[in-house]
């Protein structure tokens, strides 16, 4: 069932949402003439594959996750769900792109190469983003990855094509940043679904649709100036959120997500790539200054400071830390973030989920938390 409000039916936004809601197996039919390149982590350098004639397609797990043959149960549902789809042949793509992030993704990337797609590539960005030589290493790693991708694509990575891809993605990032600004008066589910859709549909298509859709949405949803005041304003932070059920529940409980700091939300698109100068260095530079991800080190307080600033700038009343079962990096951070946020006067709540959808118990707890605000 779709999660987006009735008002958008028939608008340009609807077109993007519907395209992204299709199963991956129908992606080629929906976008004939495009070569899909599935990837798993938002650190994957989309521009490299775009410059080589592919379309980056974010792979997200299905809503219901079973048991893939090659992963144990004590593994997050992101990895398990994706592998299950891959093993079952429901991701009919010729290659795959991974970015080294957590231990789980590292294992999945290795399994994938042998169990699903031989042409699997791993980009290994620096983990300590402030380390001596991190920028240079990152640019060289991108260049090395580019050389590997060239061999499979049969094309040469040209600076001009890379610059065009950067421009195209920057345009999309700006539109998504604008969408993020519209959150106070836009249904939380709609904003989340659009952000997710723009990672699945071809980038040019997403950009073109959003360009037309944002003014439409403004007409449809703005207007009621009092609306933001009727909601509890919350920031959501966490790993991948493959569906918008949580956002729907929060709305139902009278909250509005004014910032989505998840791997599929603003962390994915925040920050532009410098369009002047060497493209690979510019991509590396963005990689190093993205919003803090728990899989990387940017100093001891970077993520707390970032979330505090985000909450302050959005006038949020609370931060909800979404913790997926068996997700180590986020579990580690949840402790210090909760203490730090609360210490700074920002109520914080750790919401433990098996996947991305909350159940009855979580609803009761969330409700209690929101009522206390």
């Amino acid at each position: 069932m779709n999660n987006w409000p009735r008002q958008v039916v028939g608008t340009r936004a609807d077109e993007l949402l519907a395209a992204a809601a299709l199963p991956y197996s129908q992606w080629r039919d929906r976008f004939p003439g495009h070569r899909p390149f599935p990837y798993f982590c938002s650190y994957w350098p989309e521009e490299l594959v775009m410059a080589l004639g592919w379309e980056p397609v974010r792979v997200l797990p299905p809503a219901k996750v079973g048991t893939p043959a090659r992963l144990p149960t004590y593994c997050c549902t992101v990895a398990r769900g994706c592998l299950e789809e891959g093993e079952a042949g429901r991701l009919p793509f010729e290659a795959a792109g991974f970015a080294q992030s957590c231990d789980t993704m590292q294992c999945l990337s290795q399994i994938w190469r042998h169990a699903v797609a031989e042409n699997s590539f791993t980009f290994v960005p620096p983990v300590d983003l402030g380390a001596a030589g991190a920028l240079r290493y990152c640019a060289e790693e991108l260049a090395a990855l580019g050389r590997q991708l060239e061999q499979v694509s049969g094309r040469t990575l040209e600076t001009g094509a890379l610059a065009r891809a950067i421009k195209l993605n920057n345009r999309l990032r700006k539109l998504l940043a604008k969408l993020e600004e519209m959150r106070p008066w836009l249904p939380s589910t709609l904003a989340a679904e659009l952000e997710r859709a723009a990672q699945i549909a071809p980038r040019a298509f997403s950009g073109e649709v959003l360009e037309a859709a944002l003014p439409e949405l403004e007409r449809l949803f703005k207007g009621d100036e009092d609306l933001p005041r009727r909601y509890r304003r919350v920031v959501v932070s966490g790993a991948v959120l493959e569906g918008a059920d949580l956002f729907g529940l929060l709305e139902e409980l009278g909250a509005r997500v004014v910032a989505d700091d998840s791997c599929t939300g603003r962390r994915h698109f925040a920050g532009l790539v410098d369009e002047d100068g060497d493209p690979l260095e510019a991509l590396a530079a963005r990689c190093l200054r993205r919003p803090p991800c728990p899989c990387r080190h940017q100093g001891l307080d970077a993520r707390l400071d970032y979330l505090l600033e985000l909450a302050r700038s959005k006038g949020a009343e609370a931060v909800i830390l979404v913790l997926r079962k068996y997700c180590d990096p986020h579990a580690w951070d949840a402790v210090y973030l909760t203490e730090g946020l609360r210490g700074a006067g920002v109520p914080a709540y750790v919401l433990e989920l098996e996947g991305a959808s909350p159940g009855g118990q979580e609803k009761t707890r969330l409700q209690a938390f929101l009522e206390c605000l």
Partner: protein
Amino acid sequence: MSTKTKSYLPLKTTGQLRRTMEKHYLFARYHRWWGRPLKKPLAWVTSGAPVEILRVFGIYTVYPENYGAVCGTARASLPLCQEAENRGYVQDLCSYARSNLGAVFRPEIAPAGGLPAPDLLVACNNICGTVLKWYEVLARHYRVPLFIIDTPFVAGNGGPPAHAVDYVQGQLREMITGLEKLTGRRFSAASLERHLLLSWEVVELWREIRYLCRNRPSPLNIPDMFLHLAPIVVMRGTKGAVAYYRKLLAEVKERVQKGVAAVSGEKYRLLWDNIAIWPRLFGFFKTFSEKGACFVVDTYAGGWAVEIFPGEPLESVARIYTGIFLNQGIAYRVRDMVRLIEEFAVDGFVMHSNRSCKPYSLIQEEIRRRVTAATGVPGLLVEADMTDPRAYAEEQVRTRVQAFLEALQSR
């Protein structure tokens, strides 16, 4: 001889092992008395960190992971883990980390009162992403400098790429500058070389000891390897470690010469994959040794028999520590296991699916399939945890092990 019929035949060197490790922890315990006056800070270090560099600066090193194993063997992990869980660190996180944090928060319930507080922390992410998060917590708690060595994961087949080695080397230089400031001592390349030579000597001795297990019957069983691994982890780069392993080698050689079997009536030769189940170290392996099954080789203790790259010391350190097996892709691990199976004439392998250690474990089922396809040797996956007893289902494990051994018998 009556000892031969026992399911476990302890080494004479075990006494020395105990003394060596006690001395190590005693020095640590009283560090606050001698560390300051001698200007020798105490560092908490991850097991895969390049300690040889720290030794140049006279830094005393202790290993929270080893402490985790000590707690596990002493069956003291559970209350410590629970202590960490009470403070929000969920049960799914690595139990070494939880044990250590539990001991940090409540030293009064920890064996030996926990580890002495560190003056600095050194985390190298070549073993997992956990250590980075764990050491971040420690750095926030103790407010001491945290040195991170970021060793990029080796995703391809050709070993660490040049740009990764350069990157690591640059960080090592940066760490050296930081340590010069911290200790007030000057770095000495000659001293580093001396410590590296000591390390490599230990690594060579360890390799030789392991390879003696190619003999039939094997002079050692896996609990021996696990117990006697401790000095290589905590004392790498010291003369004490070299002396210790020379002695151990002599004893193992003697066993081989006399034809002493670690498991009397050795029938099956097995390979072990992953960290030990410390609280069941003897009980678990007894199930095997009673049936004449001896673990002649493993991948975990073998992780310390690293490949040595000669050359410029810092480059060689960067290359070795980036290329350790947990930092390498599946092809490397499969190749390694297939080689061990062939070299040690292994009949079957057992993989400990260790809930604590995701980088080691999540990939095991795929490895199992590929190793069996390549060698025809069967493998068994047993789910447990290296120290958290809650993850160990005794009956289930016993049934699976028995079925596996029966299957081996019928081959």
